[in-house]
């Protein structure tokens, strides 16, 4: 028999290894058997503190301090205990006692400086740290904290030097290199610091921290693609580390590389499953990929596990409306407002969900929009000095997170391209830019300047717009994803106009002067429903730019099928219970007809099954409803080849979808209401010469569907010539639209000049 005789680890060794609970017993025993040595008492105090009994720990520390009044160690430990418990005032007092005993104690200098920084006394912190760095020039943390203090005192150049010194001492420390990257552009040393980091990566290829710092600096310098390269290198070098992946996911999401961002966040969620921030970010990216059901499941779980949080509830409200649960979504948005009545995000969530609900009136929506406007932060700005000459060439700013293949892009780019370049100089202020996107490239080619504004807070964005002398700012984002309309509360330009881009209704924004519209969207008498003045274009309020890759129009499918196929390719957020009831009635009255519902959200089988069940409960069997999920844009357009008549949802009508259906030869039956979003199809159909497809009541809508479905000859004839009709109509006549838009912008400017004089 062998006996395993190993010495027990000493309590000091256990403390050093962080095994505080295990260290307790031997230390308590030592004290009990009479070891009253101060070092033993202090070690026990440390173990007690870390093991959770801070009261006993502090009593022991104080006893040691009384016994050895010249020893700084027990007071330092007491200060640390107080600080970690969040009692900053007492901790600060204790650190000062340490420094009275030992003015050169680096830990106390650094920790006290940290507390002073937290309570905004950076000058005193800086002085302590300068002393500390003199005493302990090899202490990287001292240099890093000095950098923070210097930054807070408005000395970014000196701060950068301090951070660089800290990095030199600890190149593998993330915080030091990231602090340097963050402050370098403020110090005007962005390029120099980048050069330094680039050389450092070459000299030390096995240091992921430097790659990370380099990546974040490139991001701050607006060099996104290179930033992604550097951050990806860091994630490849250290695949198990969370921070590189987190930073990479953020930059990918901001660069509209949403699929890659989702992959990174999925990996991150798996590595750090209890982090609600990571899961919320993941859900937000899933929503950008139109995977709303998955996003919703994650967000519901986060709320269950971590309790309600405003940002999470807001995302949840948006995800919920997008799977067609309008009432529930509005309730969630209202919960978010109750949780934090001053939160802009919560108000935005309500503004973004209300338009989808059946029965939301124009006045109610305007009121919600105005409430949101009221909580937007506003900073006093100097007066504009734009020359108020009514006829001079104007600088027009486009503010948007969707200047790309997106409804905003398809409906505005041709108008911007055809603005008279001698009269209007266009500057794009782009959030979430997608450099390779074909429509983004068209805006870039049409604009004199392209400014990416993601890295700018509202104050910086306001300066960027004002410094460029923008005369007319057009917001193309509203309160949508990545939108920056809230910055307009600071007035980016003397004239501000709302156009496309979450243009569900009036912006409600007090500083928004005009609202671009047309006579179908806002007939005479609608003015009281808008906080802005209405700027009605001569034809429609948008110009559709059909995609070159659209398939050819095919023959009316009903002729070969022997039955009529209705279709709706709109977002599920627009499909309310009343819409489903209405469609079910139509299907009852046209007994052989089928209905194709196609949208991203129907890729999710439970969501699709839910819709089939809704129809089944109204007596429509599953074989008459065909849910279809995502496809590429060309395939999406091509599937109109299976549809005879589009049924528009209400109250939120189709916009781009209606234009695309028209281009594919399929007309839309529409029922406009009071709010702006309910009238898009009415505008597009009227603009294309098909005003007789616009109805005035649910009954009229049903009757029209039944009547049109019975007249296949007329449908076939219309379809055969529809693309050419649309091509020649004002809806697609870009040069004509450019003139109209130019005239409207000129009018708005002249009014401004007249009002000011």
């Amino acid at each position, binding site marked *: 028999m062998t006996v395993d005789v190993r010495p027990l680890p000493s309590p000091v060794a256990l403390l050093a290894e962080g095994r505080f609970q295990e260290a307790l017993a031997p230390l308590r025993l030592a004290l009990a058997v009479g070891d009253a040595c101060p070092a033993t008492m202090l070690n026990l105090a440390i173990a007690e503190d870390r093991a959770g009994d801070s009261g006993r720990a502090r009593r022991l520390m104080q006893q040691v301090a009384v016994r050895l009044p010249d020893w700084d160690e027990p007071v330092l430990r007491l200060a640390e205990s107080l600080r970690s418990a969040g009692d900053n005032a007492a901790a600060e007092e204790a650190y000062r006692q340490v420094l009275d005993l030992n003015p050169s104690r680096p830990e106390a200098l650094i920790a006290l400086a940290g507390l002073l920084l937290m309570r905004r006394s950076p000058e005193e912190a800086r002085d302590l740290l300068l002393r500390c760095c003199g005493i302990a020039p090899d202490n990287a943390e001292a240099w890093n904290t000095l950098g923070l203090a210097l930054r807070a005192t408005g000395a970014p150049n000196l701060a950068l030097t301090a951070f660089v010194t800290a990095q030199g001492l600890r190149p593998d420390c993330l915080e030091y290199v990231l602090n340097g990257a963050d402050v370098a552009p403020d110090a005007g040393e962005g390029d120099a610091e980048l050069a330094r980091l680039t050389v450092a990566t070459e000299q030390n290829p096995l240091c*992921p921290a430097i790659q990370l710092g380099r990546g974040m600096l490139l991001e701050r310098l607006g060099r996104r693609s290179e930033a992604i390269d550097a951050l990806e290198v860091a994630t490849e070098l250290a695949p198990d580390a969370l921070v590189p992946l987190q930073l990479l996911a953020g930059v990918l999401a901001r660069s509209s590389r949403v699929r890659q961002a989702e992959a990174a966040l999925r990996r991150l969620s798996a590595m750090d499953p209890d982090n609600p921030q990571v899961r919320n970010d993941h859900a937000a990216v899933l929503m950008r990929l139109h995977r709303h059901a998955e996003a919703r499941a994650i967000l519901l779980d986060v709320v269950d596990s971590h309790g309600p949080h405003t940002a999470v509830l807001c995302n949840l409200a948006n995800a919920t409306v997008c799977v067609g649960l309008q009432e529930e979504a509005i309730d969630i948005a209202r919960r978010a407002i109750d949780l934090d009545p001053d939160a802009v995000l919560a108000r935005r969530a309500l503004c973004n969900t209300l338009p989808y609900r059946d029965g939301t009136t124009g006045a109610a929506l305007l009121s919600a929009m105005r409430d949101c406007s009221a909580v937007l932060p506003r900073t006093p700005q100097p007066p504009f000095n734009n020359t108020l000459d009514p006829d001079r060439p104007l600088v027009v700013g486009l503010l948007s997170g969707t200047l790309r293949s997106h409804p905003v892009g398809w409906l505005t780019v041709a108008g911007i391209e055809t603005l008279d370049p001698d009269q209007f100089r266009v500057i794009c202020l782009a959030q979430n830019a997608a450099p390779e996107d074909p429509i983004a490239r068209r805006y870039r080619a049409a604009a004199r300047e392209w400014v990416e504004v993601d890295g700018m807070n509202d104050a910086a964005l306001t300066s960027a717009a004002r410094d460029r002398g923008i005369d007319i700012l057009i917001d193309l984002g509203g309160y949508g994803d990545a939108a920056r309309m809230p910055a307009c509360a600071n007035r980016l330009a003397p004239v501000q106009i709302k156009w496309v881009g979450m243009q569900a209704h009036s912006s409600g924004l007090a500083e928004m002067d005009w609202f671009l519209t047309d006579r179908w969207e806002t007939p005479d008498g609608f003015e009281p429903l808008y906080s802005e003045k209405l700027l009605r274009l001569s034809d429609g309020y948008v110009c559709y730019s059909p995609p*070159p890759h659209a398939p050819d129009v095919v023959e009316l499918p009903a002729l070969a099928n022997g039955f009529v196929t209705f279709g709706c390719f709109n977002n599920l957020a627009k499909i309310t219970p009343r819409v489903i009831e209405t469609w079910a009635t139509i299907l009852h009255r046209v007994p052989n007809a089928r209905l194709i519902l196609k949208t991203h959200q129907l890729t999710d089988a439970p969501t699709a099954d839910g819709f089939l069940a809704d129809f089944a409960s109204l007596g429509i069997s599953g074989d008459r409803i065909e849910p279809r999920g995502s496809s590429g844009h060309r395939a999406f357009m091509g599937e109109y080849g299976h549809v005879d008549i589009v049924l528009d949802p209400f109250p939120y009508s189709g916009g781009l979808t209606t234009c695309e259906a028209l281009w594919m030869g399929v007309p839309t039956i529409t029922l406009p209401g009071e709010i702006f979003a309910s009238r898009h199809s009415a505008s597009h159909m009227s603009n294309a010469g098909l005003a007789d497809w616009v109805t005035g009541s649910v009954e009229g809508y049903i009757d029209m569907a039944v009547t049109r479905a019975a007249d296949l000859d007329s449908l076939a004839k219309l379809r055969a010539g529809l693309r050419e009709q649309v091509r020649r109509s004002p809806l697609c006549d870009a040069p004509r639209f450019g003139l109209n838009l130019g005239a409207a912008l000129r009018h708005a400017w002249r009014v401004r000049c007249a009002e000011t004089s």
Partner: protein
Amino acid sequence: MDTIHVTADTAALRNRAAQLVDEGRMDAARPLLAAAQALAPPSPDLALIGARLAAGEGALDQAMQTLDSGIAAAPSHVGLRKCRADIRHRMGDLEGAARDAAEAVIVDPADPQAKALLGAAMLDLGRTAEAVACLEEAVAGTPTEIGYREALSAALEKAGDPSSALRVLTDGIAVCPASVPVRNAAILLCVRRRDFIQAVRLAEQARSLGIADACTFGMKGHALSSLGRHDEAAIAYREALKLGPEDPYVRHLVVSSGAMPDSKRAPEGYIRTVFDGYADRFDAHLISLGYSIPGAIRSVLQAHPKIVAGLSIGPVLDLGCGTGMVALAIGDLPLGPFTGVDLSPRMLTQARAKGLYAELREGDIIADLAMDQQRWPLIVAADVLCYFGALEEIFAGIHQRLEPGGWFIFSVEKILPDHDGVIPGNGNWALQRQGRYAHAEHYIYEAVCAAGFRILRLDRPVIRQEAGAGVPGLLLAIERIHHDG
């Protein structure tokens, strides 16, 4: 404080670096390769990635050094041989490229890429039949590799078999129906052969299938325009611009179709692109179109008082000299030396080959006039002002550079009313569908007089034939009458 360390292994870093090189992401590949190299001893695989990385960054010499040492250590490594063959080819060492590719073929006779590299080298060495043989094997080995097909098509075209050249590409369309490049290659070949009907057919097929890019629509527009189907060409150009909005060439053509607001002159990029692409066939093309301006300039000059008196006029500035057709027409008169200015470097190469110019300058003519300090007794601009709408700036520039009493001889295209009898454009000038500007006679007269010239002679020649009809123009000789100050 969070610290971070390398936890990836060498193989993972090496594989990812190779992948990133394939994707063309050299900035991301470089640090990963450096990390892999720091963790592992040299190997042929690392050498190959390093060489491809260097080549991808344009550092061909560095790539060659890496490959030379890699091949010294592993002479039969097919990847290294193929890479060196490719780089030697790019550096102009065709024999060396052929040797490396042949070595790779010997080591791995089943490698189609090695055969393609050998074929490409043979093609440029002028050994066309061998090139065709190698490339046929390469295509047979990897029928879906479009690059091999394009090379084989080029070889067959060079071998004088254009039908087979086109068939290789149309077979490629059948094998890879979703490939835009193979469709574009086939359309381009048709355009080069002036088979515009087939080009339009292939482009229309690509469009209807949604397998088309800006280039497809651009070539479709070109082919339609060549067939005189200008309205359809305008639609094709508009679609091309949607997909390639940065292209000044296409943009100008779209503007000329009236779908975008007017510009006062054609962009430099457009002119350079058009004429660079045109330089090799320019003279023949213009002559075939009945281009008569150089001869008309000659007859105007023969009436110049100095020439009549048997004296030399002196130095000549030839603006937009192109391939040097004007110098060719008037070079035997008592003139010179000639200085030519043009935007297109390839045009200038052709002009240089004629040996008639003392100096040739690449640049925009307005910029050149502003920079030039010399005063000239004679400036000519044949078929050049049709790339400018408003002419005031150019006339002012010429006035600055002419000696008092100096002559400027130039041609413009004459503006004509449209089908409805309406004068297009702003009444003074109009941008036409072909991308050129036409000018009204009264405007030329007013602009010339306002700039300080006197008209000596005005002819109304047919300047060339287009779609079987004469294009009417104006040829003017004007004299600078104002003195400086």
